[in-house]
């Protein structure tokens, strides 16, 4: 559409900029807050200009701050978060791509029912079924373990659904050509379907990594051993300080650092991410 109406251009840009400011302001405030000392933050509204305690705050959070709250140190928690996010991502993709493969390419009894049961779980957020889930995990003795942290979150109806939709767009002739070429089901999956799903897998990795990284409620419930604390939980513990003075500058510094890995993932996977969401390789 070719349009040349300066006022409309102005208006759309104004909206765009306004939207950007609304989204970016909290992040900006967090970054600014992480550069001041505790007395500045306690004495009034958060200043909108950078302060002079940037290095202090960040080195404190990375070294000693967490220990003061009885937490493992920052890098330990970051590592826990990373392990959890990566395990969830890898597990979700492996399980959902295989279930989608089964649902699309195999004729077994109750195939459609299986699909709908998977699909229906989309309707229930984790929080709704958190009681029964917790009970099962507790009964299986998986509290305070990596398995307890990751396994209950590892199935993904969304990813299964996305892979199913993608597989259904792959022409049947491709499967038939592969069969004539002597490829069995798993060989077809490995040699043809998997490479074709590359961009979809990339896009899902980004989404699922962020999903795993920001998990808060579930780790909070199943881990009492500080050795398993993730960053999100650690940040929360620092807010509920015992002595009354919450060290917001450190909490903010920790939060800003915690934002970095998802940002890096998005930046480096962006090309794949956008391709996976917008085009299919055919």
């Amino acid at each position, binding site marked *: 559409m070719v349009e040349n109406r300066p006022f409309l251009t102005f208006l759309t840009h104004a909206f765009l900029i306004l939207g950007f400011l609304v989204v970016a302001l909290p992040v900006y405030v967090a970054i600014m807050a992480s550069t001041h000392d505790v007395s500045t933050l306690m004495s009034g509204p958060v200043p909108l200009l950078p302060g002079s305690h940037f290095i202090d705050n960040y080195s404190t959070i990375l070294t000693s701050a967490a220990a003061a709250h009885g937490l493992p140190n920052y890098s330990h928690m970051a590592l826990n978060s990373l392990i959890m996010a990566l395990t969830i991502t890898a597990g979700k993709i492996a399980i959902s791509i295989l279930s989608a493969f089964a649902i699309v390419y195999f004729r077994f009894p109750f195939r459609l029912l299986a699909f709908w049961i998977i699909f229906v779980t989309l309707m229930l957020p984790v929080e709704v079924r958190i009681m029964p889930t917790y009970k099962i995990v507790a009964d299986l003795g998986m509290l305070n373990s990596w398995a307890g942290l990751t396994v209950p979150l590892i199935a993904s109806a969304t990813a299964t659904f996305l892979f199913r939709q993608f597989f259904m767009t792959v022409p049947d002739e491709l499967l038939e050509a592969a069969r004539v070429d002597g490829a069995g089901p798993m060989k077809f999956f490995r040699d043809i379907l998997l490479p074709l799903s590359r961009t979809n897998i990339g896009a899902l990795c980004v989404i699922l990594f962020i999903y795993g990284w920001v998990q808060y409620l579930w780790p909070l419930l199943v881990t009492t051993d500080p050795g398993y604390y993730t960053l999100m939980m650690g940040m929360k513990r620092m807010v509920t300080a015992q002595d009354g003075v919450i060290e917001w500058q450190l909490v903010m510094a920790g939060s800003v650092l915690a934002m970095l890995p998802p940002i890096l993932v998005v930046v480096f996977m962006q090309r794949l991410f956008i391709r996976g969401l917008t085009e299919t*390789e055919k």
Partner: protein
Amino acid sequence: MAGIHISEVSKVYTGGVKAVSSVSIDIADGEFIVLVGPSGCGKSTLLRMVAGLEAISAGEVKIAGRVVNEVEPAERDIAMVFQNYALYPHMTVYNNLAYGLKNRGTPKAEIDARVAEAARMLEITQYLERKPRALSGGQRQRVAMGRAIVRKPAAFLFDEPLSNLDAKLRVSMRGEIKRLQRRLGTTSIYVTHDQLEAMTLADRLVVLNGGEIEQIGAPLEVYHAPASTFVASFIGSPAMNLVRGELHGDKLAIGPAMISLNGFAPTSGAVTVGVRAEDLRIARDDEEALPFRLEYTEELGAQRLIHGTVGDQQITAAVSPEIALSAEMRIAVDAKRLHFFSLDTGKRLPGNVPAEAKLAPVEPVL
């Protein structure tokens, strides 16, 4: 190299829809068979049963003397060319060609040699490192054929391989398929809905309709002696004129006109009369003729098609463009060029096979 024997093969889908009923075809080693028919006639289903991509409901398919009903496609020693090429989009042309051989555990050196040979034959050597996406339709078609050739199978199965190409490319690829098949001498089954493709490629063609065989025969045989009104109207362009006529002794009445048959009448009473457009001509003043009312013309260059009516029945005639036209004309036909079909069954009535049908088939000069 091997013959294919299809005997009494049927396909019934769940729900009772019968796609193919009791079809038998014997295909000799090296023969080029074309299955032709309108969409939904079961030709692709039949091919896919030979390929092993569809289960056979009843009957038997033998390839090289071995019953293959329960054999996986890859074990049947066939290669298939698909309508939409079905190239693996993420593999280079080389890998597309080599994939089937790799799966068979063919030694690397032999794969290289075979791919190189097929690529040379199809003139796609310079594209071996490209992905299918970077190829034109015709080149993709060549790659699809290459994938079949490298396997050196007992039979090629083509499922409408040219339908996705533009008209000009289709003609040249058609020639190429024929040339390749002659050169390799591989038994081939080719499915198409295009009667021209069927006529030009086939050693023998099999006309299918509603899951049943209407006629099997050499292209000219089918053209000159169609076994039914269906075949008559399906093979040949323009389609054969089919009109209602009545036989009175040695005379044929079509609408208001009456022409003598010189002893070619096979029966008497009402029949369907078939006549090819090119067998009709403008009548001389002194001969029996059909009164023809011209409606419109189509120019083909070498020929002119004149469409009109005789009585209340549609007739198309092919005449030389030099002939002057008028709204009312008289057209004539040699009695021996008429085809008679039963009004009830649509089957050809025996008694007259035009001389052309007995022409010797053209031996390939290759």
